[in-house]
C-alpha cells in the first residue's frame, strides 16, 4: 500500500476511534447520572415506605442520602479506577 493509502487508512481508523470514544463517553456519562438519580429514588422510596410505617418522616430524606451515597460509592468502584472505563465497555473487534 502506498504511503498516501496508509495515511488515509490511519485517518479513517482515527475517526472511528474518536466516534467510538464519543459514544462510550456519552454512555458512561449518562449511566453515571442515571445511577445517581436511581440511587436517590430507590432508597428514597424505601425510606419513605418505612417512614410511613413507623411514622418517622425523616426516614425519607435519610433514605435519599443513603441511596446517593451508595450510588457514588458504586460509581467510584466501577469507573474510578484507571482503565476501568475501557473494562466496563463490551468487547468486540468490529467496533
Amino acid at each position, binding site marked *: 500500500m502506498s504511503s498516501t493509502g496508509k495515511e488515509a487508512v490511519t485517518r479513517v481508523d482515527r475517526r472511528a476511534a474518536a466516534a*467510538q470514544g464519543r459514544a462510550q463517553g456519552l454512555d458512561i456519562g449518562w449511566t453515571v447520572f442515571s445511577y445517581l*438519580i436511581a440511587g436517590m*429514588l430507590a432508597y428514597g422510596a424505601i425510606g419513605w415506605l418505612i417512614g410511613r410505617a413507623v411514622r418517622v418522616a425523616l426516614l425519607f430524606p435519610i433514605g435519599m442520602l443513603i441511596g446517593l451515597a*451508595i*450510588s457514588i460509592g*458504586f460509581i467510584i468502584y466501577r469507573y474510578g479506577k484507571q482503565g476501568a472505563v475501557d473494562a466496563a465497555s463490551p468487547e468486540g473487534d468490529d467496533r
Partner: protein
Amino acid sequence: MTGDVQVVAAPATMKGAAEVGGGCHIRSGCGYPSPGLDSFNFRPLFTIGSFQFTKPMLIAVICVIIVIAFFWAAFAKPKLVPRGVQNLGEIGILAVRDQILRPSLGKRGDSYLPFLVALFFYIWVMNLMELIPLFQFPAMSRIGFVWPLVFLVYFLYLYVGFKNQGFPGYIKNMIPWDVPKFVLIILIPIELLRFFVVQPFTLGVRLFANMFAGHLLLLIFTLATWYLATVSVSLLFAAGSFVMVIFVTLLELLIDLLQAFIFTTLTAVYIASSLEAAH
C-alpha cells in the same frame, strides 16, 4: 366522531414575537411580557369532534413529510455514481452509520441503520423547526411528542434483549456480579430502577428540556429586543438583547443537531447492551 371539520378560530400558526407578548412595549406601560408556559400552548387550528389539531401537530406532520420526501427524492431512482440529492442522502446515511451506529453496534448492527437514520433525521428536523421562520416552534418542547419516540426505543431494546439473551439472562446480565455479595443486595434495587425507569426517563426528558429551554431563551431575548427598542438609552439594551438573539440562534443550531445525535447514539448504545451483556 362526527367527521365534521370546524374551523374554530383564526389560525394561530404564525404567532410572532409581538403577538406572543400582546404587542407590549416599554412605552405602552404594560410591563415586560415574560414568556412562560403559555408560550407553548396554541389555539387549535381546527377541531374534528373532540380532537383538536394544533400547530405542534402540524409541525410534526410536516417534519415526517420532509424526511420521507427527502429520502424518497434521494433513493427512489438510485444511480451507481450519486448526484444531487442522492449525494446528500448518502452523506447523511453514512454519517449516521459511521458516527452513531458503528461505534456502538459494530457491523452486526447494520440492520438497525434504517431505524436510526429515520430517528436521527426526524428529531433533527423537528428541532430545526424552532429556527425556521413561520414555524418557529420545536415540537419536541411539548413532551407528548418525545414519549412515543422514547417508548419506541424502550420497547425495541427490551425486545432485542429478551430475544438475544432470554428473559432470565437479560435480567441476570443487568446485575453487576463482580461486586461483593452484601453490596449486591444493596445495588439490585438501584440497578433495576436505573435500567427500567431512569434510563428511558432521562432519554426523553433530556431532549424535551433542551428544546423547551432553547425556545424559552429565544423568546425572552426576541421579546426583550422589541420591548426595549425606543429612541433612548434603552436602545442599547435592545441591541444587546438582539446580539443575544443571534447568539442563542447559533447555539440552538448546534443544540438541535447535538440532541438528535445524543438521542440516536444512546439508542444505539442501549440496543448494543441488549445484544450482548455489558457487565
